[in-house]
């Protein structure tokens, strides 16, 4: 199953494919994410041996088996913790976490929050299909209120949480959203993740053809999608619509959709992904269809020291302060006495 490739330069997308049969359902959005990531890794100069994919449990978590890199298919919800251990043991590795809405936000909610707040240098892709697929169709923590599933035949009475809101609430340094069918934009966002130094979080709206088809039809329908999503671009006003005739502004301390025929573009919110204060990013994350177009792109990208940098920095400082680390000194610490 390993391919002996020593030349890290000039790898192609094919070099990141394994010989394992991809077992996702036909039409599943996971296929697209896999292919785009293989392309982006190849073009970014990543190597097979310095790249590690870590996952939890669920359909998305089969991902490492299909990536010809180091891979660790972990246990449900714990991928961020496993990946943190890997990154601390060897900060030079490029460590990716592939997770789903149940894996990251239900059973793994705690690990997700704390990985984000520590700013561990991990790239986390959350495949959000708003359903439990592998266990064959129960509602997930991102399923909409009232969703009818096998475990909620009368409609889910849980209110959903929104991954980007959660990540921003935990002070994420990089948060983005993409959709499985918009492959060029997905590639762009993946590239941006690679460039980010701390925790880079990407939510992908991913279609589950079998248990939750059309969950994102509003954002994928070729005719109407541009009226239902807004692409975030740093430094540019929030304008959307098939005819680019609508925008977002703040009025009475709330976001609202405006018609550009009536409102000047100067009044629109200008996207600032580098804003230190995360409140506008959080507001953007609260924009939901049908009241609002849903934002795609980079919500937030700020710089902060990473967990592993700080950890290694303390080791280095400790080494300088206490002199070259020597066990003998440690052994002899405190009161000692000699027996002859």
């Amino acid at each position, binding site marked *: 199953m*390993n391919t*002996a490739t020593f030349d890290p330069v000039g790898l192609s997308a094919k070099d990141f494919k394994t010989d394992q049969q991809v077992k996702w359902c036909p039409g599943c959005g996971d296929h697209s994410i896999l292919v785009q990531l293989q392309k982006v890794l190849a073009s970014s100069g990543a190597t097979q041996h310095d790249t590690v994919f870590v996952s939890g449990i669920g359909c998305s978590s089969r991902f*490492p088996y299909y990536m010809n890199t180091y891979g660790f*298919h972990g246990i449900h919800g*714990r991928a961020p913790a496993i990946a943190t251990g890997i990154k601390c043991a060897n900060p030079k590795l490029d460590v990716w976490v592939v997770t789903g809405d149940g894996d990251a936000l239900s059973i793994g909610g705690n690990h997700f929050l704390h990985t984000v707040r520590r700013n561990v240098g991990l790239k986390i892709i959350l495949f959000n299909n708003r359903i439990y697929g592998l266990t064959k169709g129960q509602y997930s923590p991102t399923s909409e209120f009232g969703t009818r599933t096998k475990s909620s035949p009368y409609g889910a009475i849980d209110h959903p949480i929104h991954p980007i809101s959660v990540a921003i609430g935990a002070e994420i340094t990089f948060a983005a959203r993409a959709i499985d069918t918009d492959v060029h934009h997905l590639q762009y966002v993946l590239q941006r993740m690679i460039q980010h130094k701390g925790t880079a979080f990407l939510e992908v709206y991913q279609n589950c053809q079998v248990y939750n088809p059309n969950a994102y039809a509003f954002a994928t329908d070729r005719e109407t999608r541009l009226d239902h999503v807004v692409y975030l671009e740093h430094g540019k006003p929030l304008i959307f619509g098939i005819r680019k005739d609508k925008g977002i502004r703040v009025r009475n301390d709330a976001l609202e959709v405006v018609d550009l025929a009536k409102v000047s573009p100067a009044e629109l919110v200008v996207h600032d992904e580098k804003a230190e204060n995360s409140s506008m990013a959080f507001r953007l994350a609260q924009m939901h269809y049908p009241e609002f177009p849903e934002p795609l792109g980079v919500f937030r990208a700020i710089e902060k020291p990473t967990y592993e940098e700080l950890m290694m920095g303390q080791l280095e400082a400790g080494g300088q*302060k206490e002199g070259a680390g020597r066990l*003998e000194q440690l052994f002899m610490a405190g009161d000692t006495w000699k027996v002859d």
Partner: protein
Amino acid sequence: MRTTPKSTKPVKELTQAAVRFAGDSGDGMQLVGGQFTSTSAVVGNDVATFPDYPAEIRAPVGTPAGVSGFQINFASRHVYTPGDRVDALVVMNPAALKVNLGELVEGGILIVNSDEFTEPNLRKALYDHNPLETGELDRFQVYKVPITQNTLEAVKDTGLSPRDAGRCKNFYALGLAYWLFDRPLEPTLRWINSKFGRVPAVARANSLALQAGYAYAEAAPELTVRFRVQPAKLRPGTYRSLTGNQAAALGLVTAAQLAGKPLFYGSYPITPASEILHDLASYKSLDVRVFQAEDEIAAMAAVVGAAFAGAIAATGTSGPGMALKQEAIGLAVMTELPCVIINVQRGGPSTGLPTKTEQADLWQAILGRNGECPVPVVAAQSPADCFWTAIEAVRIAIKYMTPVIMLSDGYLAMGSEAWRIPDLSELTPIEIRHATDPETFQPYARDQRGARPWAIPGTPGLHHRIGGLEKEHITGNVSYNPQNHQLMVTLRARKVDNVADDIPDQEVFGSPSGQLLLVSWGGTFGAVRTAVQQAREAGQDVSHAHLRWLHPMPRNLGEILRSFRQVLVCEMNLGQLQLLLRARYLVDAMGLHKVQGRPFTVAEIRDQINKLLGDKK
């Protein structure tokens, strides 16, 4: 600095003595207990200690719930336990008297801070009378000392507030005890100066209190005799006092250094294991990477990740945390990655008795996971032994590519003993051979012991995938094949059984066969060994086998068990090892069980020996 004053009073020689300091949680009893210990060690005694304190940070002042105690056993020969009962008891208030009086031997020395035996304090201690006035303590040698007043008087020139001045009374009590057992003051005076050097008034006050306590005892007419315990004949070398948790932390960092690797320690704070986390967090110059995780689960999962990436990876916890870690330990078994899990056992189930000791996690260690999930299990037998056990656990983990569970307990973790500091040349390097050859590499190929190769990310050409799903033999690809699963379950079990090739044969203390064999494991070693030693000296036909490895067990154990008429398993649970021995070796092993949150006393074990051997002494 003044030296210890000369005494004019007669000295009685003892081979061994035990002292307990007891007071309110805020009275600084742990501190003076620690000082008495290191001073006793410095004068060459062998020492064993046991702190006993409440789980609450500050239980209501003056109540029995808030009593904190510290017991030291010191001797001119080897000591294995902190002592069943104490020869001298120092109590700082009525509650401490109430809680600890049962620990004092008949005729023992009782030093009482008489200032605190006031009406309100007696009420808080649930006394309806003053025990100092009823004669009920006449069976002891009682010395009523106005410790609080005397301390205030001794430190009045230091300018401390009455409140701060009063806080020096623990050192006054320590001074009394130092006089009584002929200990020098210098080590503690030095310690006070280094500890409180930045606040000269406090340093001076504590020093004055210590000296005043000593001087009071010398001057007091009722104190007519003092005691001396000569130095023990210990193996030559440099020694220090070490608690089990300190020893475990040192053992882990030593193992990583012996392997030439960083140590990754992922942990979540839990009593009584947190000191391992604290100690390791301070070892920055030795490449110790400490990760305080969000929970027990993450701590263990991160350990598995760090092991995958090539670090010496370990975690420490106690029973409730162990329960949460089992899922990720199963992952380490499936992915066959080396790591060490230290379980500092405490009273259970559930939250149980956080600060009290127990050995009821043996089944959890050996049997506590889903599926056929074998893990080697080793238990430390004394505080300093935690050092050696941690190194051994790391060595086996790497050699067999497996998680290893190391069992300690609250008694070992908090207790301390003299540790002979090893010379680095005495320590065997830990050999690690990572896979490097892409031509021959197969993730689940095995060596003759059954261990798979350790191929770490970053190695060119060896990229591969592992995980919690069943693996195909050799290739490590996911496999649901029925025959393959049977093979892999068997291979994992066999690999762990093979660890028995690496552990020494079981030794028996005493005769290799006979009337009665006592079997113990973990922290009960000291009490059982002392009891068997005493019984043998009294002519009883009893031997002792103390198990270090609980899974797998030594190859010759069955033969040993069958060589005795009776087998008695002494453990602080309701018979966990007993059941395993009965099941595995078909011997009619009996059990001596204690689950009171406190270790066995030597007397309890001797009583049982007497019962089984018909009381022939």
